[in-house]
């Protein structure tokens, strides 16, 4: 509520496990830019893991559902603000479970039965929203543009959306109908709002292999190769993405791809929120967390330095 | 038509030039006025800039009322538009198309546009000179009674609809009970929203409604023995209980339905090996009785598999899809699942076909847990093991442990009399089926003798349904696969025998709802035929046409070409071998006129002389003018509309073509072609409908006849020392409007290559 004129809106924030490890730079930069965009984040107290995309296999369907159920119950205890998450997997699970609890009486009953073991309950009266959808629908491009003091001039960005940020909810009513499944535009719009140039980039919503890439990269390296290759061919300086797992897979496997396919990729992969932090003239390290990228986004670092200097 | 023949009056032509829709900008009307007054000596000529408006129409109407004009020649838009505006009682209206064919397709203000406009006016004025208002035939008395053959859902519906429309109906059924196949159905497919549940079979109610209708006379255990005459004047001999009786009939609806494909031919699918392999038709009876049990031991049938396309879409059996079997199996599967929730039902299909609302029914069955298995069934064993192949699985999969196997067999049309055994009858022998065209007298072979009247004995297996006394044979013509139809899309219900309309599964496979709808259409066609005939008017596709062919018997050489070529059997020979027109069968296509080698067949308003005069009315410029002329003889059914559409789209039409509309290419005499060539035209295009197996000719064989005759044109060209490129057939459909301009340009380029006709200036 630093800027009452701007009408800051409060959201209950679900950071997810990656915020403490592989995607700390998403968490850090998002928390940094949020106040400037009128977003007040109140973290769910004592949140737990959403189960990601593999939990169900060992845990089973209902325990997996109960994980999100506990988070939602905790969020509801804190108030009726919309729940915001920036992680694609967290969004997929939490939003999906929330809608199921809303619509399916049996699921609601079973989840609450399980929650009862910890004296919790949840009736499905919250909305779970993706950070990008909030930026599109609640904040708007104009407000983002209005915060830019250090336009990312000359930075060529390949906007890689990935899968779960848009599928299967982006075009649904509960998902805020904020973009399409196959040709989303929001990410390019964010980059251009920051003063960068969004290059034409085909594999916007191609799959990086998700968790299969994590445990069996041999099956999916070719997918990641196509994602990086198209960005290099388009002359991009940096790939921008909203998804923690995409960021990690596309960044950390470039060496393995080079080894397997004889390429020489070394293309930085950043979060859109890092672009915003730099464009908003904020600190490269403390706010944009550019030091957390394994492949240093050199051009972006330079742009940040220029602003600071 | 009791009015005095109009040709007795002197012709009083009057020319009305419209300047609207860009015509005045395209061509100077004054020059056209001169054509009328100087060349054709028509003194009465009026110009108006909005002829189809109130004032314009009044102008013409007043002239006619004053007795100044009885042949208004309206030089404005295509005759295909504003026909109602320009219809005047007691006057013969002639149209010259200056809009679609000049103003909208030629360079406005150009010399070529002016020349084209003048030529089209000349043609119209020539048409006025060479034709007279048609006078309808009158061969009263007529019968207005509708005969419906067949008392299943189609026949019952046709009878009820015709009766409700105010017509007397005679319904003939070969069985002792009305209702047909549907009597045996436990339930029917959903024909009303939400299309998700099997519905009660309501055939009994329809039977009651028909039986109690005062305008419907029902004869059971009754067959048609012989049908002669024509629309409005059919004489139909019926046999009932050994007694024959003749009835006067106006029009006939044939609704003889279908029979299931003989399952005894499906031994490879286990039929006959065990009583637990049944047909879908047999299953209806089992479902009607209550809980489903195995015929072999009476145990409950809990695991049931349906084999789709049993003997269908199989070149060794029925080559076609019967379209209803998928829906029927879905219905039966749902019935089984609903009556026994513990049951498991499998539908093994290769391609599931659920047109229209049946898709909704399909989803309902999926939601009800019916298992749809994609595969081609290879065989069914005596132990009820159904083995199928699926290309995706790449293996043969056995389904074991089934209680009952249902074969979804297809529908066979009852296009012939079944005989007492009710067994499958052979297909009718080929007659005028376009797949086996009849030989054409004088062109390919000698004419066959007129059809000898078939014996009027009781119908036998494979015998004709109606025993038609037509020269083309006693059977209803079939289009393909034994179904009595002439063209699914363009001419539904038409059988190629005027006044006789097929409907229901006799025409193509269809379900109860479709049959009822189809029967309604056929009933309306029958009524339409009666109404037209009683007024002396032509039937589809020249519905309302009062003209009919008149034969000059003094010059007739009795060559029999007209009788053989008539696609509708409307001309027979009398005992002297002279042709006799049966006008109510005639469709006014003029194929007889095109066939006649001595030009002695003509209509009041359409003749070889009229056409050749119109062709010659066009001014052919000298060779030095470098303006070639190509004559387009264009069929009024598709070619002319397509040319009009090119005009509506404002396409440029080649300025050197001159279009003469003809009723059908079949009506084009070779004389028209040779006269055009000798007048100095550089090329001739015969633009008509597709002929052959999938013909689109609206008169069935007209375009095919034109093709046959064209084979003779080669000799004509040779004798005139002309190149074969000078005569070009072109098959076009209504959908070809966009490519017509290019087709004509390409032809003109070809003509340009071979140079101008050497006969220019001799005509």
């Amino acid at each position: 509520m630093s800027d009452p004129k701007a009408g800051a809106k409060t959201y209950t924030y679900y950071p997810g496990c990656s915020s403490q490890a592989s995607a700390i730079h998403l968490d850090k930069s998002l928390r940094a830019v949020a106040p400037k965009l009128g977003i007040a984040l109140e973290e769910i107290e004592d949140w737990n893991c959403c189960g990601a995309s593999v939990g169900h296999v060992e845990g089973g369907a209902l325990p997996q559902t109960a994980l999100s159920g506990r988070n939602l119950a905790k969020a509801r205890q804190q108030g009726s603000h919309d729940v915001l998450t920036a992680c694609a997997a967290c969004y997929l699970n939490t939003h999906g479970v929330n809608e199921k609890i809303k619509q399916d009486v049996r699921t609601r009953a079973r989840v609450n039965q399980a929650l009862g073991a910890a004296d919790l309950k949840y009736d499905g009266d919250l909305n779970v929203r993706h950070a990008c959808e909030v930026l599109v629908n609640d904040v708007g491009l104009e407000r983002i543009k209005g915060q830019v003091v250090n336009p990312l001039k000359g930075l060529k960005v390949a906007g890689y959306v990935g899968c779960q940020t848009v599928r299967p909810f982006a075009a649904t009513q509960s998902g805020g109908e904020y973009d399409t499944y196959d040709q989303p535009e929001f990410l390019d719009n964010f980059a251009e709002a920051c003063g960068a140039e969004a290059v034409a980039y085909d594999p916007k919503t191609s799959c990086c292999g998700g968790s299969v890439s994590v445990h069996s990269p041999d099956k999916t390296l070719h997918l990641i190769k196509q994602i990086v290759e198209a960005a290099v061919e388009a002359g991009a300086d940096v790939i921008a993405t909203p998804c923690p797992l995409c960021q990690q897979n596309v960044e950390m496997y470039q060496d393995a791809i080079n080894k397997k396919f004889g390429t020489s990729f070394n293309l930085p992969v950043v979060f859109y929120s890092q672009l915003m932090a730099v464009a908003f003239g904020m600190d490269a390290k403390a706010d944009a967390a550019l030091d957390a990228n394994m492949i240093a986004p050199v051009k972006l670092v330079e742009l940040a330095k220029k602003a600071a200097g | 038509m009791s009015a005095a023949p109009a040709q007795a009056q002197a012709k009083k032509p009057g020319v009305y030039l419209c300047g609207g829709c860009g015509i005045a900008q395209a061509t100077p009307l004054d020059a056209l006025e001169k054509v009328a007054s100087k060349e054709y000596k028509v003194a009465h000529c009026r110009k108006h800039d909005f002829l189809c408006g109130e004032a314009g129409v009044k102008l013409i109407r007043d002239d006619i009322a004053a007795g100044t004009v009885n042949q208004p020649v309206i030089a404005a838009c295509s005759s295909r538009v504003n026909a109602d505006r320009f219809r005047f009682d007691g006057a013969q209206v002639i149209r010259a198309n200056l809009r679609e064919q000049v103003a909208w397709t030629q360079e406005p203000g150009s010399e070529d546009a002016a020349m084209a406009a003048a030529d089209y006016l000349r043609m119209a004025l020539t048409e006025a000179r060479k034709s007279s208002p048609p006078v309808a035939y009158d061969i009263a008395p007529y019968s207005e009674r509708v005969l419906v053959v067949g008392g299943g859902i189609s026949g019952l519906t046709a009878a009820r609809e015709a009766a409700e429309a105010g017509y007397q109906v005679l319904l003939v059924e070969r069985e002792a009970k009305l209702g047909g196949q549907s009597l045996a159905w436990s339930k029917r497919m959903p024909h009303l929203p939400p299309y998700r549940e099997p519905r009660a079979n309501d055939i009994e109610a329809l039977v009651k409604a028909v039986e109690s209708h005062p305008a419907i006379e029902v004869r059971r255990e009754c067959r048609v023995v012989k049908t002669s005459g024509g629309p409005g004047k059919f004489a139909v001999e019926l046999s009932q209980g050994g007694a024959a009786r003749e009835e006067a009939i106006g029009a006939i609806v044939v609704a003889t339905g279908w029979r299931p494909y003989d399952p005894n031919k499906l031994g490879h699918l286990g039929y006959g090996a065990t009583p637990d392999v049944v047909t879908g038709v047999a299953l209806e009876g089992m479902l009607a009785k209550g809980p489903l049990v195995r015929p072999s031991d009476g145990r409950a049938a809990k695991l049931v598999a349906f084999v789709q396309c049993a003997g269908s879409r199989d070149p060794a059996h029925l080559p076609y899809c019967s379209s209803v079997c998928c829906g029927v199996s879905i219905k039966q599967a749902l019935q089984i699942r609903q009556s026994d929730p513990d049951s498991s039902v499998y539908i093994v299909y290769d391609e599931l076909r659920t047109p229209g609302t049946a898709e909704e029914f399909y989803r309902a069955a999926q939601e009800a847990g019916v298992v749809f298995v994609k595969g081609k069934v290879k065989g069914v064993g005596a132990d009820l093991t159904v083995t199928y192949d699926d290309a995706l699985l790449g293996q043969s999969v056995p389904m074991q442990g089934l209680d009952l196997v249902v074969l979804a067999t297809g529908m066979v049309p009852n296009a012939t009399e079944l005989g007492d055994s009710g067994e499958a009858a052979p297909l009718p022998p080929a007659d005028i089926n376009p797949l086996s065209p009849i030989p054409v007298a004088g062109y390919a072979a000698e004419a066959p003798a007129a059809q000898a009247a078939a014996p009027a004995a009781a119908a036998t297996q494979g015998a004709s349904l109606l025993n038609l006394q037509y020269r083309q044979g006693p059977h209803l013509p079939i289009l393909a696969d034994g179904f009595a139809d002439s063209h699914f899309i363009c001419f539904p219900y038409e059988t190629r025998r005027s006044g006789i309309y097929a409907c229901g599964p006799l025409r193509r496979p269809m379900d109860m709802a479709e049959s009822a709808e189809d029967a309604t259409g056929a009933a309306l066609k029958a009524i339409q035929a009666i109404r037209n005939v009683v007024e002396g008017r032509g039937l589809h596709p020249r519905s309302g046409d009062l003209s009919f062919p008149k034969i000059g018997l003094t010059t007739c050489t009795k060559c029999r070409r007209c009788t053989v070529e008539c696609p509708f059997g409307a001309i027979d020979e009398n005992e002297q071998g002279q042709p006799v027109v049966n006008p109510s069968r005639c469709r006014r296509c003029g194929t007889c006129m095109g066939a006649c080698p001595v030009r002695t067949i003509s209509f009041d308003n359409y003749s070889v002389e009229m056409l050749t005069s119109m062709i010659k009315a066009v001014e052919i410029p000298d060779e030095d003018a470098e303006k070639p002329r190509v004559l387009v003889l264009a069929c009024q059914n598709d070619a002319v509309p397509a040319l009009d559409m090119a005009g509506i789209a404002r396409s440029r039409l080649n300025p050197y073509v001159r279009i003469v509309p003809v009723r059908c290419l079949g009506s084009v005499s070779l004389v028209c072609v040779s006269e055009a060539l000798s007048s100095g035209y550089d090329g001739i295009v015969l633009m008509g409908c597709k002929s052959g197996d999938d013909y689109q000719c609206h008169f069935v064989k007209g375009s095919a006849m034109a093709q046959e005759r064209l084979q003779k044109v080669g000799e004509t060209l040779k004798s005139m020392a002309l190149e074969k490129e000078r005569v070009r057939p072109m098959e076009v459909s209504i959908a070809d409007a966009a490519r017509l301009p290019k087709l004509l340009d390409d032809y003109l380029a070809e003509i340009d290559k071979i140079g101008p006709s050497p006969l220019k200036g001799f005509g």
Partner: protein
Amino acid sequence: MSAAPAAASAASAGRRQYDLGFARWVYQHVEGGDKVAMCMQCGMCSGSCPIGTAMDHGPRKLFMMIRAGMKEAVLTSNTIWNCTQCYNCVVRCPRKVPVTAILQSLATVAVKEGYAPTQSTPKFSKAFWLSVARFGRTDERLVTALYYFSHGLKEGIRRALENLPIALRMIKAGRMHLGLPHRAKGAADLRAILAKAEDIERAERAGGKPS
């Protein structure tokens, strides 16, 4: 969820290749399985799959195999493990079949019924779930280590060494910390919730009412 139909009939020893009842069992007892009934075999799913080449069978074929009763082939296929959850098939399916969710459910069934002892995903999932259930949050070091060593000690060391450079870079970038595992404070109540959820499912499988 009741147990999948037993394979053995009195007559046939060993597993039957085709089990007529399997399709209905999937329709009725697998989470989202009723939607398999809606499949019309169009193939949009298989055509949209980014990883189809790495699958034994595309989703369309897998659904056909369910209907053909090929229970063992379905539950041992790698299809259910290799789904990357890109949701292309889900948003494109003309019959709105939730393909991803169904593959997940089948994977769960495969684990429960012991069809997936050699798959990597279940091992990874086991490691993952252990971390979640114990600490409330996932710890990548823990998950990774547990996963690698689930393949055996030797293989675990090989994989760990192979991925050491990545791990070192992650540590350098501050994305892999060296302290105690992250944990939710209320991990204990989470464990109670999960235990209860497992109880409910177990009771449902047994056909009785959850206590």
